């Protein structure tokens, strides 16, 4: 008996058009400045904050989120320890997650967040508020440059651009759909 796999592959092979070339994708250049990234991020509901060095991050966060009770972070001693085995009920109570971003994209305000930096895959979306810490030297202009710098996508990883949002009710923009209600990128 022919399997569905064989049927589909045979039909695709029989019906496909003559081969056309795969184009090369140019770099296109572009503006990779902190100013551009900051402006675009603000336009999509996020916020960029500048600190002098990575050592200043914790202090800046205390000012930004004075009321955060349950804070998870691999970057400094938070108030709740999270790893891949942390039960869902505990994750659901987290107020703030502070994670290291790897690459920032100036054209769209996105930050690459690999699984290795997440503590738990669900943490970036289940936390009420999300902070991504990013070295400003890791800003690139476009998505082409971001993908060129990715060593790979690992098991899971996401470009996160601003806070969770929706416009499904009459096209009215509402920040804070299912994921984080706010997103701050701390640049150093």
């Amino acid at each position, binding site marked *: 008996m022919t*399997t*569905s796999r064989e*049927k589909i*592959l*045979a*039909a*695709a*092979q*029989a*019906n*496909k*058009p003559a*081969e*056309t*070339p*795969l184009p090369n*994708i140019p770099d*296109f250049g572009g503006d990779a400045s902190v100013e551009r990234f900051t402006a*675009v991020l603000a*336009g*999509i509901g996020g916020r960029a904050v500048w600190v002098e060095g990575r050592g200043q991050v914790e202090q800046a966060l205390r000012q930004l989120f004075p009321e955060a009770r349950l804070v998870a972070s691999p970057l400094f001693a938070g108030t709740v320890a999270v790893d891949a085995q942390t039960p869902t*009920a505990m994750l*659901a109570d987290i107020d703030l997650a502070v994670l290291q971003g790897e690459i920032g*994209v100036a*054209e769209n305000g*996105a930050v690459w967040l690999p699984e290795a930096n997440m503590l738990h*895959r*669900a943490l970036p*979306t289940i936390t009420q508020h999300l902070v991504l810490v990013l070295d400003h030297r890791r800003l690139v202009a*476009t*998505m*082409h440059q971001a*993908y*060129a710098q*990715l060593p790979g*996508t*690992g*098991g*899971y*990883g*996401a*470009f*996160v*651009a*601003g806070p*969770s*949002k*929706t*416009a*499904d*009710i*009459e*096209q*009215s923009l*509402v920040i*804070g*759909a*299912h*994921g*984080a209600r706010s997103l701050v990128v701390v640049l150093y």
Partner: protein
Amino acid sequence: MSHSLRAATFVADAERTTWHDETLWFVRQKRDKAVYAVPEFQELRELASQIKEHTLSRLDEYLKQFEAEAQLNGVHVHWATDAAEHNALVLDIIRQHGATRIVKSKSMLTEECHLNPHLLAHGIEVIDTDLGERIIQLREEAPSHLVLPAIHLKKEDVSDTFHLHLGTEKGNHDPQQLTEAARQHLRAKFLAGEVAISGVNFAVAETGGVVICTNEGNADLGVNLAKVHIACMGIEKLIPRLSDLGVFTRLLARSATGQPVTTYTSHYTKPAEGREMHIVIVDNGRTQQLGRPDFRASLKCIRCGACMNTCPVYRRSGGHSYDFTVPGPIGAILSPNIDMKKHSSLPFASTLCGSCTDVCPVKIDIHTQLYKWRQVLAEAGEIPTAKKWSMKFTGRLLASPTAFGMGGRLARTGLRLLPHGLTHATTVNAWAVARELPEPPKQSFREWYQETVKL
């Protein structure tokens, strides 16, 4: 029932039709603003088109490569030739885990396969977690747009639905508060979800991974809390390389809603430790479309919805008037492949203005295909008798200078002499339903020309 008959129900509410038209035009304007801000946008469209064409030209090989890479990543890969097989496969995976609580993020493929009713019939609770999809799920309606599934509803409608199902305050129409109510309601569903079903925006042959784009974060929250992830994809979602995503992520959200990128562009490549990931690859008529040279380019579609936002017919007739999973111009060229008889009126739901083709981020020749489907449908005898004979009659009339000249004289005289009530009788003249006929001129251009040249 034809598109125009279903559209008649929609346009009966003139105020809502105008609102729908203006709202989608606003989305089109946001798209323009985002597009004009990228100097290389037209080059990106050409690249995207070429990448997709190339992928289709080697589709079987990329499918095999994708499968092999995904399996190396520890992902279970399944194949389904049609909707029934897809639904059976998904149900089987759910049953193997003894699960009954399912969270689902946006997937037009599972809509196309009618997965939800199938699961519900087998005692499985399936919750759509995209806000717009949840709204229409509660109302037991179908999505009316690719990316804005509840765009046919006003906030008052949503308020009534949430009051009924989620117990929100009656008469509270505030989108912020309605969204917050949905957030709380769906959080509980996310936390309890055993299996997460998602669609796929892009499947990368090189890595065996799938990419899912959302603004709400519902795919990530659902998938990353559940023990099992089932990603359902049509065979046309493939792209060859990770670097190709640079092109598509720059085009997708800008074309769809005018955003520079979706909030989450998530790459699922391997299951988390101790969890499972399944990918179901579905044909359901796609290889047949691949075999139609005039129409195969429709498989390049990345489901952005730009063609419907710009379409003067879609904007004024609403997504439900198409009665197909994918509405609008792209739906009108995909649907006859699935069922030529049922969807025979859709390629005629167009002015052939070409705006859909102009905004398509992967350069599908949508309006040309609409025109070509009309020929196919006419030859297959799938157009109404009145249309068929009036086309034949008009064809003969326009081909004969004598008949054309006589017809013109007859019409000019007739329009002057006959009463308005007769010339504009909507029973015989559908054109006059909402239009005035022009004032008849004294003579035709031909008569004027002959006179003028004689002088």
